């Protein structure tokens, strides 16, 4: 089941640049929350703070609070945290040295699960959830990179789901894909909502409008507005939000 996230006074730096200037945000469980905003507004940085990936880059700094299901993520071991908070990236990145099967179970197997039956069950379950099982069930031992772009991305989603996270972070998951593959991914995200808390960064506003329950608008490292998607796109409260979504920016 998904978990709630509370973000309080989150500030982040990338070298000398302050990319997040104090974010306060509540992210609801079992919801799809989209984060939109122009390039450089800090949305990717924000999402990477939640699974503590931002810290892995040199020269970064983070202060503030992020509470996941009642516990601060900074009190946990970051490696363990990332089993609860999974991530899917913009460019599909299956492991080239592994087959489709090995890719899906990579997170589980490299963390100790050895039993063959368990792994196969996990692989099938995850691939079904990612709507990829039927397409690859007869070629699980083929290389992970032998699939098309859309399939690779679904493979990465299956791989992330296999670890059974509570929260799924998606950083522009469909922007490298063609429209039909994008629609597949969007439908998939809708279906996953019931069991996960999903946070999706997208520069495609229409996508946010289509799939998100609530939408947050970031601008210059600040959270400008956050509300129900239908509200944001029919009657936003902040003029900056309206200017952005109507395309009258800059």
């Amino acid at each position, binding site marked *: 089941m998904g978990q709630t996230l509370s973000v309080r006074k989150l500030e982040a730096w990338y070298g000398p640049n302050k990319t997040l200037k104090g974010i306060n945000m509540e992210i609801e469980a079992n919801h799809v929350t989209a984060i939109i905003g122009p390039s450089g507004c800090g949305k990717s940085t924000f999402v990477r703070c939640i699974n503590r990936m931002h810290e892995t880059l040199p020269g970064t700094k983070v202060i503030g609070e992020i509470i996941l299901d009642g516990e601060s993520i900074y009190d946990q071991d970051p490696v363990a945290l990332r089993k609860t908070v999974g991530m899917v990236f913009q460019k599909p990145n299956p492991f080239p040295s592994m087959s489709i099967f090995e890719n899906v179970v990579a997170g589980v197997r490299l963390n100790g699960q050895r039993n063959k039956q368990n792994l196969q069950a996990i692989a099938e379950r995850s691939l079904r959830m990612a709507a990829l099982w039927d397409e690859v069930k007869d070629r699980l031992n083929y290389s992970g990179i032998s699939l098309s772009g859309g399939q690779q991305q679904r493979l990465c989603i299956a791989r992330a789901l296999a670890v059974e996270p509570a929260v799924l972070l998606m950083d522009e998951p469909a922007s490298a894909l063609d429209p039909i593959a994008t*629609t597949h991914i969007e439908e998939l995200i809708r279906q996953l909502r019931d069991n996960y808390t999903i946070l999706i960064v997208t520069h495609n506003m*229409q996508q946010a409008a289509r799939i998100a329950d609530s939408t947050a608008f970031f601008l210059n490292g600040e959270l400008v507005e956050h509300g129900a998607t239908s509200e944001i796109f*029919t009657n936003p409260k902040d003029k900056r939000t309206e200017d952005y979504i109507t395309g009258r920016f800059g």
Partner: protein
Amino acid sequence: MRQSLNEGQFVLIQLLKDMGKEVERILLGCMQTLISLDRIQADYWIAEDQKINDFERQVDDECVRLIATQQPVAKDLRKIISAMKISTDLERMGDLAIDIAKIVRRIEGPLIKQLIDIPLMAEKALEMMRRGLEAYANEDMELANGLADQDDQVDQLYKKVVRDLLVIMTERPEVLDQGMYLAFVGRYLERFADHATNIGENVIYIATAGRQDLNK
């Protein structure tokens, strides 16, 4: 695919059908009030106007939400725009039904004749409304086209009603008021049927993106 959009469109169809049922309920109620000339009942029906307005607002809000969040194009877009127009037609039909109740408040004394054609008009007009909404739900152009003939029938009935009332009013000038009011009722029902025909025109627009005047 496009689950959200499909679900939204399904919701619209349901809302319009429910709105139609409400309009039917109100029209039948107002017709009953006309026959019984019960002023207390008339007041009740006049207040029911609010329900129709609520429906219209619900349909409009849902359409706006769907357009903003799902970016429909082509037929999807026409269906949703048409839903907004149909809700306006239904709202007018509701108003027309309630106008009948308002007439009841002004009529004095017993009915000057047994009402046969007027209730028949109401029945036919409701039949047309049901047909129109069915055609919308199923994108059925044939059903929509059939509304043109039915509208003609209602127009014929209206002419007969007016002729009959004129005869009575000429023979008994003291019942001129009631005769006039009853003629108004006929007019309202004829307009009711016209709006129902508009629903059919929307269905044709959805299917072909073209416009056809079924009212002739």
